[in-house]
Protein backbone atom coordinates (compact mmCIF):
# COMPACT_ATOMS: atom_id res chain seq x y z
CA UNK A 1 0.00 0.00 0.00
CA UNK A 2 2.54 2.50 1.13
CA UNK A 3 4.59 3.99 -1.67
CA UNK A 4 6.60 6.30 0.53
CA UNK A 5 10.33 6.02 0.30
CA UNK A 6 11.54 4.76 3.67
CA UNK A 7 13.45 7.44 5.52
CA UNK A 8 16.04 6.82 8.16
CA UNK A 9 14.09 7.47 11.35
CA UNK A 10 16.77 9.41 13.17
CA UNK A 11 16.98 11.85 10.24
CA UNK A 12 13.31 12.79 10.23
CA UNK A 13 11.41 11.41 13.21
CA UNK A 14 8.32 13.53 12.56
CA UNK A 15 7.71 12.12 9.07
CA UNK A 16 7.33 8.44 10.13
CA UNK A 17 3.77 7.24 10.03
CA UNK A 18 2.03 4.00 10.66
CA UNK A 19 -0.46 3.27 7.93
CA UNK A 20 -3.67 1.52 8.69
CA UNK A 21 -3.82 -0.99 5.84
CA UNK A 22 -7.11 -2.45 6.86
CA UNK A 23 -6.17 -5.50 8.91
CA UNK A 24 -8.90 -6.21 11.39
CA UNK A 25 -8.71 -8.01 14.68
CA UNK A 26 -10.92 -11.06 15.11
CA UNK A 27 -13.93 -10.07 17.16
CA UNK A 28 -16.13 -13.10 16.58
CA UNK A 29 -16.85 -15.68 19.26
CA UNK A 30 -13.86 -17.61 20.62
CA UNK A 31 -15.05 -21.20 20.73
CA UNK A 32 -12.42 -22.29 23.18
CA UNK A 33 -10.98 -25.50 24.46
CA UNK A 34 -14.13 -27.59 24.78
CA UNK A 35 -15.06 -26.82 21.17
CA UNK A 36 -11.58 -27.77 19.91
CA UNK A 37 -11.73 -31.01 21.87
CA UNK A 38 -15.18 -31.80 20.50
CA UNK A 39 -14.03 -31.09 16.95
CA UNK A 40 -10.98 -33.32 17.32
CA UNK A 41 -13.23 -36.07 18.71
CA UNK A 42 -15.76 -35.88 15.90
CA UNK A 43 -13.08 -35.61 13.21
CA UNK A 44 -11.28 -38.66 14.61
CA UNK A 45 -14.53 -40.60 14.86
CA UNK A 46 -15.50 -39.75 11.29
CA UNK A 47 -11.97 -40.56 10.16
CA UNK A 48 -12.21 -44.01 11.74
CA UNK A 49 -14.95 -44.82 9.21
CA UNK A 50 -13.27 -42.94 6.37
CA UNK A 51 -15.92 -40.20 6.33
CA UNK A 52 -14.46 -36.95 5.09
CA UNK A 53 -11.51 -38.82 3.58
CA UNK A 54 -10.84 -40.31 0.16
CA UNK A 55 -13.08 -43.02 -1.27
CA UNK A 56 -10.25 -45.53 -1.03
CA UNK A 57 -9.96 -45.10 2.71
CA UNK A 58 -13.69 -45.72 3.15
CA UNK A 59 -13.45 -49.19 1.61
CA UNK A 60 -11.85 -51.11 4.47
CA UNK A 61 -13.81 -49.75 7.49
CA UNK A 62 -17.12 -49.97 5.65
CA UNK A 63 -16.33 -53.49 4.46
CA UNK A 64 -15.51 -54.60 8.01
CA UNK A 65 -18.64 -52.88 9.31
CA UNK A 66 -20.65 -54.84 6.76
CA UNK A 67 -18.94 -58.10 7.69
CA UNK A 68 -19.78 -57.36 11.34
CA UNK A 69 -23.49 -56.84 10.59
CA UNK A 70 -24.20 -59.57 8.02
CA UNK A 71 -24.17 -62.52 10.47
CA UNK A 72 -26.60 -60.62 12.72
CA UNK A 73 -28.95 -60.07 9.77
CA UNK A 74 -28.75 -63.78 8.94
CA UNK A 75 -29.53 -64.77 12.54
CA UNK A 76 -32.49 -62.38 12.56
CA UNK A 77 -33.79 -63.62 9.21
CA UNK A 78 -33.59 -67.24 10.37
CA UNK A 79 -35.29 -66.40 13.67
CA UNK A 80 -38.14 -64.49 12.01
CA UNK A 81 -38.76 -67.07 9.28
CA UNK A 82 -38.64 -70.15 11.52
CA UNK A 83 -40.49 -68.38 14.39
CA UNK A 84 -37.88 -69.28 17.00
CA UNK A 85 -38.63 -68.47 20.62
CA UNK A 86 -35.03 -67.41 21.23
CA UNK A 87 -32.10 -66.20 19.11
CA UNK A 88 -29.56 -68.84 18.16
CA UNK A 89 -26.71 -66.64 19.44
CA UNK A 90 -26.29 -64.80 22.74
CA UNK A 91 -25.79 -61.02 22.56
CA UNK A 92 -22.67 -61.31 24.69
CA UNK A 93 -21.11 -63.97 22.49
CA UNK A 94 -21.41 -62.06 19.25
CA UNK A 95 -18.22 -60.02 19.67
CA UNK A 96 -16.34 -63.12 20.79
CA UNK A 97 -17.21 -64.96 17.59
CA UNK A 98 -16.31 -62.02 15.36
CA UNK A 99 -13.20 -60.95 17.29
CA UNK A 100 -10.98 -61.35 14.22
CA UNK A 101 -13.02 -58.67 12.43
CA UNK A 102 -12.81 -56.36 15.45
CA UNK A 103 -9.05 -56.90 15.71
CA UNK A 104 -8.50 -56.15 12.02
CA UNK A 105 -10.66 -53.03 12.26
CA UNK A 106 -8.71 -51.79 15.28
CA UNK A 107 -5.38 -52.67 13.67
CA UNK A 108 -6.30 -50.74 10.54
CA UNK A 109 -7.86 -47.68 12.19
CA UNK A 110 -5.86 -47.06 15.38
CA UNK A 111 -2.60 -46.35 13.51
CA UNK A 112 -4.40 -44.17 10.99
CA UNK A 113 -5.79 -42.15 13.89
CA UNK A 114 -2.49 -41.41 15.66
CA UNK A 115 0.50 -42.59 13.59
CA UNK A 116 -0.02 -40.11 10.77
CA UNK A 117 -0.13 -37.18 13.16
CA UNK A 118 3.21 -38.33 14.50
CA UNK A 119 4.81 -39.01 11.15
CA UNK A 120 3.83 -35.76 9.48
CA UNK A 121 4.60 -33.86 12.68
CA UNK A 122 1.17 -32.32 12.91
CA UNK A 123 0.97 -32.91 16.67
CA UNK A 124 2.61 -29.53 17.47
CA UNK A 125 -0.03 -27.86 15.28
CA UNK A 126 -2.78 -29.38 17.42
CA UNK A 127 -1.12 -28.06 20.52
CA UNK A 128 -0.92 -24.56 19.04
CA UNK A 129 -4.70 -24.55 19.49
CA UNK A 130 -6.17 -24.00 22.92
CA UNK A 131 -6.12 -27.72 23.79
CA UNK A 132 -4.08 -29.46 26.42
CA UNK A 133 -2.37 -32.81 26.23
CA UNK A 134 -5.20 -34.46 28.15
CA UNK A 135 -7.71 -33.09 25.62
CA UNK A 136 -5.85 -34.62 22.68
CA UNK A 137 -5.49 -38.00 24.40
CA UNK A 138 -9.10 -38.01 25.61
CA UNK A 139 -10.45 -37.01 22.19
CA UNK A 140 -8.46 -39.70 20.36
CA UNK A 141 -9.19 -42.34 23.01
CA UNK A 142 -12.88 -41.46 23.07
CA UNK A 143 -13.12 -41.46 19.29
CA UNK A 144 -11.44 -44.85 18.95
CA UNK A 145 -13.60 -46.37 21.70
CA UNK A 146 -16.75 -44.86 20.15
CA UNK A 147 -15.82 -46.17 16.70
CA UNK A 148 -15.35 -49.65 18.14
CA UNK A 149 -18.61 -49.31 20.07
CA UNK A 150 -20.47 -48.43 16.88
CA UNK A 151 -18.84 -51.43 15.20
CA UNK A 152 -19.74 -53.87 17.97
CA UNK A 153 -23.09 -52.48 19.16
CA UNK A 154 -24.78 -52.12 15.76
CA UNK A 155 -25.05 -55.89 15.20
CA UNK A 156 -26.48 -56.23 18.73
CA UNK A 157 -29.06 -53.57 17.88
CA UNK A 158 -29.95 -55.54 14.74
CA UNK A 159 -30.32 -58.70 16.82
CA UNK A 160 -32.51 -56.90 19.37
CA UNK A 161 -34.81 -55.36 16.76
CA UNK A 162 -34.97 -58.74 15.05
CA UNK A 163 -35.87 -60.50 18.28
CA UNK A 164 -38.76 -58.06 18.75
CA UNK A 165 -39.87 -58.62 15.16
CA UNK A 166 -39.91 -62.35 15.87
CA UNK A 167 -42.21 -61.61 18.86
CA UNK A 168 -39.80 -62.82 21.52
CA UNK A 169 -40.21 -61.85 25.17
CA UNK A 170 -39.55 -58.07 25.31
CA UNK A 171 -38.31 -57.83 28.91
CA UNK A 172 -35.93 -60.78 28.66
CA UNK A 173 -34.49 -59.72 25.29
CA UNK A 174 -34.02 -56.14 26.47
CA UNK A 175 -32.20 -57.28 29.59
CA UNK A 176 -29.87 -59.48 27.56
CA UNK A 177 -29.40 -56.68 25.01
CA UNK A 178 -28.41 -54.34 27.86
CA UNK A 179 -25.91 -56.87 29.19
CA UNK A 180 -24.48 -57.21 25.69
CA UNK A 181 -24.15 -53.43 25.39
CA UNK A 182 -22.27 -53.18 28.69
CA UNK A 183 -19.94 -55.94 27.57
CA UNK A 184 -19.14 -54.39 24.18
CA UNK A 185 -18.73 -50.95 25.77
CA UNK A 186 -16.10 -52.39 28.09
CA UNK A 187 -14.53 -54.20 25.15
CA UNK A 188 -14.45 -51.01 23.07
CA UNK A 189 -12.72 -48.94 25.73
CA UNK A 190 -10.21 -51.70 26.53
CA UNK A 191 -9.38 -52.52 22.90
CA UNK A 192 -9.32 -48.86 21.89
CA UNK A 193 -6.81 -48.09 24.63
CA UNK A 194 -4.54 -51.00 23.77
CA UNK A 195 -4.71 -50.23 20.05
CA UNK A 196 -3.90 -46.54 20.50
CA UNK A 197 -0.99 -47.20 22.85
CA UNK A 198 0.61 -49.62 20.39
CA UNK A 199 -0.08 -47.33 17.44
CA UNK A 200 1.23 -44.23 19.22
CA UNK A 201 4.57 -45.89 19.92
CA UNK A 202 5.52 -45.97 16.24
CA UNK A 203 5.12 -43.32 13.54
CA UNK A 204 5.18 -46.06 10.88
CA UNK A 205 1.68 -47.23 10.10
CA UNK A 206 2.67 -50.72 8.97
CA UNK A 207 4.42 -51.53 12.20
CA UNK A 208 1.50 -50.20 14.20
CA UNK A 209 -0.91 -52.45 12.32
CA UNK A 210 1.27 -55.49 12.86
CA UNK A 211 1.82 -54.71 16.54
CA UNK A 212 -1.91 -54.37 17.26
CA UNK A 213 -2.77 -57.61 15.46
CA UNK A 214 0.09 -59.46 17.08
CA UNK A 215 -0.92 -58.42 20.59
CA UNK A 216 -4.64 -59.10 20.12
CA UNK A 217 -4.82 -62.31 18.11
CA UNK A 218 -1.58 -63.94 19.14
CA UNK A 219 -2.24 -63.45 22.84
CA UNK A 220 -5.72 -64.93 22.34
CA UNK A 221 -4.33 -67.88 20.40
CA UNK A 222 -1.62 -68.48 22.96
CA UNK A 223 -4.00 -68.25 25.92
CA UNK A 224 -6.60 -70.56 24.40
CA UNK A 225 -3.88 -73.08 23.49
CA UNK A 226 -2.57 -73.03 27.06
CA UNK A 227 -6.11 -73.31 28.44
CA UNK A 228 -6.76 -76.35 26.28
CA UNK A 229 -3.54 -77.98 27.43
CA UNK A 230 -4.21 -77.16 31.08
CA UNK A 231 -7.67 -78.72 30.67
CA UNK A 232 -6.30 -81.85 28.99
CA UNK A 233 -3.77 -82.33 31.78
CA UNK A 234 -6.33 -81.70 34.59
CA UNK A 235 -4.69 -78.49 35.79
CA UNK A 236 -8.18 -76.98 36.03
CA UNK A 237 -7.16 -74.55 38.78
CA UNK A 238 -4.86 -72.73 36.39
CA UNK A 239 -7.46 -72.19 33.67
CA UNK A 240 -9.29 -69.27 35.25
CA UNK A 241 -6.02 -67.40 35.80
CA UNK A 242 -4.73 -67.97 32.27
CA UNK A 243 -7.61 -65.87 30.94
CA UNK A 244 -6.03 -62.77 32.48
CA UNK A 245 -3.34 -62.70 29.79
CA UNK A 246 -5.32 -61.78 26.70
CA UNK A 247 -7.78 -58.90 26.18
CA UNK A 248 -10.51 -61.04 24.65
CA UNK A 249 -10.46 -63.68 27.40
CA UNK A 250 -10.47 -60.84 29.97
CA UNK A 251 -13.74 -59.51 28.53
CA UNK A 252 -15.04 -63.06 28.31
CA UNK A 253 -14.24 -63.67 31.97
CA UNK A 254 -15.93 -60.43 33.08
CA UNK A 255 -19.11 -61.06 31.12
CA UNK A 256 -19.43 -64.71 32.08
CA UNK A 257 -19.10 -63.76 35.77
CA UNK A 258 -21.25 -60.65 35.95
CA UNK A 259 -23.26 -60.32 32.75
CA UNK A 260 -24.89 -63.70 32.55
CA UNK A 261 -22.95 -64.79 29.48
CA UNK A 262 -22.04 -68.40 28.85
CA UNK A 263 -18.24 -68.79 29.13
CA UNK A 264 -16.26 -68.79 25.90
CA UNK A 265 -14.99 -72.28 26.65
CA UNK A 266 -18.05 -74.07 28.05
CA UNK A 267 -16.25 -77.29 28.86
CA UNK A 268 -13.67 -75.37 30.89
CA UNK A 269 -16.19 -73.38 32.90
CA UNK A 270 -15.97 -69.65 33.64
CA UNK A 271 -13.94 -68.03 36.38
CA UNK A 272 -15.32 -68.05 39.93
CA UNK A 273 -16.86 -64.84 41.32
CA UNK A 274 -13.68 -63.99 43.24
CA UNK A 275 -11.61 -64.39 40.10
CA UNK A 276 -14.25 -62.39 38.20
CA UNK A 277 -13.64 -59.40 40.49
CA UNK A 278 -9.94 -59.62 39.66
CA UNK A 279 -10.84 -59.76 35.95
CA UNK A 280 -12.79 -56.51 36.32
CA UNK A 281 -9.92 -54.90 38.25
CA UNK A 282 -7.40 -55.97 35.59
CA UNK A 283 -9.61 -54.57 32.81
CA UNK A 284 -9.97 -51.24 34.63
CA UNK A 285 -6.22 -51.17 35.40
CA UNK A 286 -5.41 -51.80 31.73
CA UNK A 287 -7.72 -48.98 30.64
CA UNK A 288 -6.17 -46.61 33.17
CA UNK A 289 -2.67 -47.76 32.17
CA UNK A 290 -3.31 -47.12 28.48
CA UNK A 291 -4.55 -43.62 29.31
CA UNK A 292 -1.46 -43.05 31.46
CA UNK A 293 0.93 -44.34 28.79
CA UNK A 294 -0.71 -42.16 26.14
CA UNK A 295 -0.36 -39.11 28.41
CA UNK A 296 3.31 -39.93 28.94
CA UNK A 297 3.83 -40.52 25.21
CA UNK A 298 2.46 -37.11 24.27
CA UNK A 299 4.40 -35.21 26.91
CA UNK A 300 7.17 -34.25 24.51
CA UNK A 301 6.10 -35.66 21.20
CA UNK A 302 7.09 -34.17 17.86
CA UNK A 303 8.77 -31.11 19.36
Amino acid at each position, binding site marked *: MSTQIPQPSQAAPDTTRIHNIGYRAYDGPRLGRAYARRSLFSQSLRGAYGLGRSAKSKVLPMLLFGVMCIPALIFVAVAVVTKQSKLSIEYTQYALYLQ*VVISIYLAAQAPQSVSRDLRFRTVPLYFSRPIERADYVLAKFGAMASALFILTATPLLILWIGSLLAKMDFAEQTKMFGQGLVSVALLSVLFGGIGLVLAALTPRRG*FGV*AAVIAVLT*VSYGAVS*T*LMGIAFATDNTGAIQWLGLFSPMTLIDGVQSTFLGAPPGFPELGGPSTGAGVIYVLVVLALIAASYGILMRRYRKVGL
Partner: protein
Amino acid sequence: MYNPTVARLTYRALLGRRRALILFLLPAMLLVIAAAVRAFNGADDQVAADVLGGFALATMVPLIGVIAGTGAIGPEIDDGSIVYLLSKPVKRSSIIFTKLIVAIAVTMVFSAVPTFIAGFILNGNGQQVAVAYTVAALVASIAYSALFLLLGTVSRHAVVIGLVYALVWETLFGSLIAGARTLSVQQWALALAQKVTGDGLVTSDVALSTAVALLAAVTVVATWFASHKLSRLTLAGEE
Protein backbone atom coordinates in the same frame (compact mmCIF):
# COMPACT_ATOMS: atom_id res chain seq x y z
CA MET B 1 21.57 -59.01 -8.76
CA TYR B 2 22.32 -58.63 -5.04
CA ASN B 3 23.18 -55.11 -4.01
CA PRO B 4 24.87 -54.88 -0.60
CA THR B 5 23.99 -51.21 -0.05
CA VAL B 6 20.30 -51.77 -0.66
CA ALA B 7 20.50 -54.80 1.61
CA ARG B 8 22.13 -52.76 4.40
CA LEU B 9 19.47 -50.06 4.15
CA THR B 10 16.69 -52.65 4.22
CA TYR B 11 18.16 -54.39 7.26
CA ARG B 12 18.33 -51.05 9.02
CA ALA B 13 14.73 -50.23 8.08
CA LEU B 14 13.52 -53.60 9.38
CA LEU B 15 15.58 -54.01 12.50
CA GLY B 16 16.58 -50.49 13.41
CA ARG B 17 15.63 -48.86 16.70
CA ARG B 18 12.61 -50.37 18.42
CA ARG B 19 11.20 -52.11 15.38
CA ALA B 20 13.05 -55.32 16.10
CA LEU B 21 11.15 -55.54 19.41
CA ILE B 22 7.95 -56.75 17.79
CA LEU B 23 9.98 -59.29 15.85
CA PHE B 24 11.40 -60.61 19.13
CA LEU B 25 8.00 -60.59 20.84
CA LEU B 26 6.46 -63.44 18.84
CA PRO B 27 9.37 -65.92 19.05
CA ALA B 28 9.65 -65.17 22.77
CA MET B 29 5.96 -65.99 23.15
CA LEU B 30 6.43 -69.28 21.29
CA LEU B 31 9.30 -70.26 23.57
CA VAL B 32 7.29 -69.35 26.68
CA ILE B 33 4.38 -71.45 25.47
CA ALA B 34 6.69 -74.33 24.63
CA ALA B 35 8.24 -74.19 28.08
CA ALA B 36 4.81 -73.96 29.76
CA VAL B 37 3.48 -76.90 27.77
CA ARG B 38 6.51 -78.99 28.60
CA ALA B 39 6.15 -78.12 32.29
CA PHE B 40 2.41 -78.89 32.37
CA ASN B 41 2.42 -81.87 30.14
CA GLY B 42 5.83 -83.47 29.79
CA ALA B 43 7.17 -84.51 26.42
CA ASP B 44 4.44 -85.65 24.04
CA ASP B 45 4.99 -85.91 20.30
CA GLN B 46 1.38 -85.19 19.36
CA VAL B 47 1.14 -82.10 21.61
CA ALA B 48 4.47 -80.89 20.26
CA ALA B 49 3.19 -81.24 16.71
CA ASP B 50 -0.06 -79.44 17.64
CA VAL B 51 1.70 -76.49 19.26
CA LEU B 52 4.24 -76.12 16.47
CA GLY B 53 1.58 -76.53 13.80
CA GLY B 54 -1.07 -74.38 15.47
CA PHE B 55 1.02 -71.57 16.84
CA ALA B 56 4.41 -71.54 15.12
CA LEU B 57 3.50 -72.37 11.55
CA ALA B 58 -0.10 -71.10 11.47
CA THR B 59 0.37 -67.81 13.32
CA MET B 60 3.97 -66.84 13.92
CA VAL B 61 5.49 -67.50 10.49
CA PRO B 62 2.81 -65.59 8.53
CA LEU B 63 2.87 -62.67 10.97
CA ILE B 64 6.64 -62.34 10.78
CA GLY B 65 6.41 -62.81 7.02
CA VAL B 66 3.93 -59.92 6.84
CA ILE B 67 6.11 -57.66 8.97
CA ALA B 68 9.35 -58.46 7.14
CA GLY B 69 7.89 -58.75 3.63
CA THR B 70 5.84 -55.56 3.61
CA GLY B 71 8.23 -53.75 5.96
CA ALA B 72 11.09 -54.24 3.47
CA ILE B 73 9.48 -51.95 0.90
CA GLY B 74 6.11 -50.64 2.12
CA PRO B 75 7.21 -47.77 4.38
CA GLU B 76 9.63 -46.47 1.73
CA ILE B 77 6.89 -46.30 -0.89
CA ASP B 78 4.51 -44.91 1.71
CA ASP B 79 6.67 -41.93 2.67
CA GLY B 80 8.06 -41.43 -0.84
CA SER B 81 11.72 -41.96 0.07
CA ILE B 82 11.85 -44.80 -2.46
CA VAL B 83 12.51 -42.16 -5.17
CA TYR B 84 16.03 -41.62 -3.79
CA LEU B 85 16.68 -45.33 -4.23
CA LEU B 86 15.03 -45.53 -7.65
CA SER B 87 17.03 -42.57 -8.97
CA LYS B 88 20.31 -44.44 -8.38
CA PRO B 89 21.74 -46.55 -11.20
CA VAL B 90 20.47 -49.80 -9.71
CA LYS B 91 18.13 -52.02 -11.66
CA ARG B 92 14.63 -52.19 -10.23
CA SER B 93 14.65 -55.96 -10.48
CA SER B 94 17.82 -56.12 -8.39
CA ILE B 95 16.26 -53.81 -5.79
CA ILE B 96 13.35 -56.22 -5.48
CA PHE B 97 15.65 -59.25 -5.48
CA THR B 98 17.84 -57.77 -2.73
CA LYS B 99 14.85 -56.79 -0.62
CA LEU B 100 13.40 -60.26 -1.09
CA ILE B 101 16.65 -61.87 0.10
CA VAL B 102 16.67 -59.62 3.17
CA ALA B 103 13.00 -60.30 3.93
CA ILE B 104 13.55 -64.06 3.57
CA ALA B 105 16.60 -63.93 5.82
CA VAL B 106 14.79 -61.93 8.53
CA THR B 107 11.70 -64.17 8.38
CA MET B 108 13.83 -67.32 8.55
CA VAL B 109 15.91 -66.09 11.47
CA PHE B 110 12.89 -64.95 13.47
CA SER B 111 10.58 -67.87 12.66
CA ALA B 112 12.55 -71.01 11.79
CA VAL B 113 15.17 -70.71 14.54
CA PRO B 114 12.60 -70.28 17.36
CA THR B 115 10.52 -73.10 15.86
CA PHE B 116 13.54 -75.37 16.01
CA ILE B 117 14.34 -74.39 19.62
CA ALA B 118 10.68 -74.72 20.65
CA GLY B 119 10.58 -78.17 19.05
CA PHE B 120 13.55 -79.22 21.12
CA ILE B 121 12.00 -77.78 24.31
CA LEU B 122 8.69 -79.56 23.59
CA ASN B 123 9.90 -83.09 22.97
CA GLY B 124 13.61 -83.08 22.19
CA ASN B 125 13.02 -83.55 18.45
CA GLY B 126 11.19 -86.87 18.98
CA GLN B 127 10.06 -88.33 15.66
CA GLN B 128 11.82 -85.45 13.87
CA VAL B 129 8.97 -83.07 14.78
CA ALA B 130 11.28 -80.11 15.41
CA VAL B 131 13.21 -80.66 12.19
CA ALA B 132 10.02 -81.15 10.18
CA TYR B 133 8.43 -77.92 11.33
CA THR B 134 11.71 -76.04 10.94
CA VAL B 135 11.85 -77.18 7.30
CA ALA B 136 8.23 -76.10 6.89
CA ALA B 137 8.97 -72.70 8.46
CA LEU B 138 12.01 -72.19 6.22
CA VAL B 139 10.06 -72.99 3.07
CA ALA B 140 7.05 -70.95 4.15
CA SER B 141 9.37 -67.98 4.89
CA ILE B 142 10.45 -67.87 1.23
CA ALA B 143 6.91 -67.97 -0.17
CA TYR B 144 5.45 -65.55 2.41
CA SER B 145 8.27 -63.05 1.91
CA ALA B 146 7.82 -63.04 -1.86
CA LEU B 147 4.05 -62.78 -1.56
CA PHE B 148 4.02 -59.97 0.99
CA LEU B 149 6.82 -58.08 -0.76
CA LEU B 150 4.57 -58.06 -3.82
CA LEU B 151 1.68 -56.79 -1.68
CA GLY B 152 3.94 -54.01 -0.40
CA THR B 153 4.50 -52.77 -3.95
CA VAL B 154 0.86 -53.11 -4.96
CA SER B 155 -1.11 -51.55 -2.13
CA ARG B 156 -0.77 -49.01 0.65
CA HIS B 157 -2.77 -51.32 2.88
CA ALA B 158 -0.37 -54.19 2.34
CA VAL B 159 -0.10 -55.05 6.02
CA VAL B 160 -3.85 -55.25 6.50
CA ILE B 161 -4.35 -57.31 3.34
CA GLY B 162 -1.50 -59.61 4.33
CA LEU B 163 -3.00 -60.10 7.78
CA VAL B 164 -6.42 -60.80 6.33
CA TYR B 165 -4.85 -63.44 4.09
CA ALA B 166 -2.87 -64.99 6.93
CA LEU B 167 -5.60 -64.92 9.57
CA VAL B 168 -8.87 -65.13 7.68
CA TRP B 169 -8.02 -67.09 4.53
CA GLU B 170 -5.55 -69.61 5.92
CA THR B 171 -7.01 -70.07 9.38
CA LEU B 172 -10.74 -69.47 9.03
CA PHE B 173 -11.55 -70.52 5.47
CA GLY B 174 -8.85 -73.19 5.62
CA SER B 175 -10.71 -74.85 8.48
CA LEU B 176 -14.15 -74.46 6.87
CA ILE B 177 -13.64 -75.01 3.14
CA ALA B 178 -11.37 -77.85 2.08
CA GLY B 179 -10.61 -76.22 -1.26
CA ALA B 180 -9.08 -73.16 0.41
CA ARG B 181 -6.45 -75.45 1.91
CA THR B 182 -5.03 -76.28 -1.51
CA LEU B 183 -4.36 -72.58 -2.02
CA SER B 184 -2.53 -71.98 1.22
CA VAL B 185 1.19 -71.49 1.74
CA GLN B 186 0.84 -73.14 5.15
CA GLN B 187 -0.43 -76.40 3.64
CA TRP B 188 2.29 -76.45 1.01
CA ALA B 189 4.90 -76.09 3.74
CA LEU B 190 3.15 -78.81 5.77
CA ALA B 191 3.46 -81.17 2.80
CA LEU B 192 7.23 -80.91 3.16
CA ALA B 193 7.01 -81.40 6.93
CA GLN B 194 4.94 -84.51 6.33
CA LYS B 195 7.70 -85.85 4.08
CA VAL B 196 10.25 -85.31 6.88
CA THR B 197 8.35 -86.98 9.73
CA GLY B 198 6.96 -89.73 7.52
CA ASP B 199 4.07 -90.99 9.68
CA GLY B 200 0.76 -89.56 10.84
CA LEU B 201 1.96 -86.76 13.14
CA VAL B 202 1.89 -84.09 10.46
CA THR B 203 -0.72 -84.18 7.74
CA SER B 204 -1.18 -81.97 4.74
CA ASP B 205 -3.99 -81.83 2.22
CA VAL B 206 -1.64 -81.20 -0.67
CA ALA B 207 0.57 -83.73 -2.43
CA LEU B 208 4.30 -83.08 -2.15
CA SER B 209 4.88 -82.54 -5.88
CA THR B 210 1.97 -80.11 -6.13
CA ALA B 211 3.19 -78.26 -3.05
CA VAL B 212 6.74 -77.85 -4.34
CA ALA B 213 5.54 -76.75 -7.77
CA LEU B 214 3.09 -74.20 -6.28
CA LEU B 215 5.67 -72.86 -3.81
CA ALA B 216 8.21 -72.32 -6.58
CA ALA B 217 5.60 -70.81 -8.89
CA VAL B 218 4.26 -68.40 -6.27
CA THR B 219 7.73 -67.24 -5.28
CA VAL B 220 8.92 -66.67 -8.85
CA VAL B 221 5.73 -65.07 -10.12
CA ALA B 222 5.35 -62.81 -7.07
CA THR B 223 8.96 -61.63 -7.38
CA TRP B 224 8.64 -61.03 -11.11
CA PHE B 225 5.38 -59.14 -10.67
CA ALA B 226 6.82 -57.07 -7.81
CA SER B 227 9.75 -55.90 -9.95
CA HIS B 228 7.31 -55.27 -12.80
CA LYS B 229 5.20 -53.07 -10.47
CA LEU B 230 8.27 -51.28 -9.14
CA SER B 231 9.56 -50.55 -12.64
CA ARG B 232 6.44 -48.51 -13.40
CA LEU B 233 5.74 -47.19 -9.93
CA THR B 234 3.83 -43.96 -9.59
CA LEU B 235 4.01 -42.18 -6.30
CA ALA B 236 0.58 -41.24 -5.08
CA GLY B 237 0.13 -38.42 -2.63
CA GLU B 238 -0.93 -39.09 0.91
CA GLU B 239 -4.66 -39.78 0.87
